[in-house]
């Protein structure tokens, strides 16, 4: 009953295209049109049309596997979208401050756990005494990966600031 209520609310507030885009750009591995249609509560034929459109728009990538077309997010599109979001929110100085803050967080973890990477930290999870400690370490390793990825996006935004910024001069 509650599951149906959630789906109904989703349908009321979004279009079929919105739902297909949201579901397809969030999959962690490429999926078939049938799978995406089921998750998005959209008829399969409609889903196929929307997925093709999203491929044309370079939001998704498609490929064939065992005779089935699979769809997944285009990592380049996602990355550019994140850079654009950062440039909306920050000027160059503020991006540099953000970069320093992310670097400091990573250095703190390196120093606190005496490891160089999230992978090394995950290995530490095998040596803990309690389930709570294991969970904490695994969660920190996940946060570390996310922040490293975020740092790479911030560095891209700084490097290309003059080209991508809204304040960049428009060429004649």
């Amino acid at each position, binding site marked *: 009953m*509650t*599951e149906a*209520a*959630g*789906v109904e*609310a*989703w349908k009321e*507030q*979004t279009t079929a295209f*919105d*739902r297909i885009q*949201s*579901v397809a*750009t*969030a*999959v*962690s*591995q*490429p999926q078939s049109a049938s799978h995406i249609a089921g*998750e*998005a509560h959209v008829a399969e034929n409609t889903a196929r049309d929307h997925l093709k459109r999203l*491929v044309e728009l370079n939001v*998704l*990538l*498609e*490929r064939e596997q065992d005779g089935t077309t*699979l*769809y*997944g*997010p*285009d*990592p380049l599109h*996602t*990355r550019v*979208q*994140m850079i654009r979001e950062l440039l909306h929110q920050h000027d160059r100085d503020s991006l540099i401050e*953000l970069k320093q*803050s*992310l670097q400091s*967080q990573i250095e703190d973890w390196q120093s606190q756990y005496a490891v160089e990477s999230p992978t090394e930290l*995950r290995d530490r999870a095998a040596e803990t005494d309690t*389930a709570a400690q*294991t*969970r904490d370490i*695994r*969660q920190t390793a*996940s*946060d570390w*990966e*996310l*922040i*490293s*990825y*975020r740092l790479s996006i911030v560095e891209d935004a700084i490097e290309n600031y003059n080209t991508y910024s809204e304040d960049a001069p428009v060429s004649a």
Partner: protein
Amino acid sequence: MMGGPSDGYDSAAASHRALHSIKQELRRHPIVVETRGFPAGEFVEVVADLAIERWGVDSHNATLTVRWFAGETEDARPEFSFHYSDTERDLGWHHHEQEHVDGWGHFQKRTSTEEYSYEAYTFPSKNPARLVWDVMARLSSEVE
């Protein structure tokens, strides 16, 4: 077209996409007032401020905090939580390793200052966008 979608799995990129999608779906929900990546600038979780008075519930500081980690490998189970709190309640739907109930999926609710009660919960999907709407419907039933 080739060189397709799964040539190199990147758990951090997949997790970020999931968080981005969660933030977008929360923005579309009628009781969500504001969403933000948290901590500011880091974006390891999504925080949404909720106007639960629109459900006829009288409470303050209603917030949903969502974490999502897509898994170390493409086939790994995602680890995530949708956790709600206001001045009177503290509860959430989580999916990660824990020692309280069988399996990963569970619902937890604070019963006293220091303790939670736990019950097993099976999520209807592992897609972050869809789960936002499922959790919000469950939250509505839980707080009303």
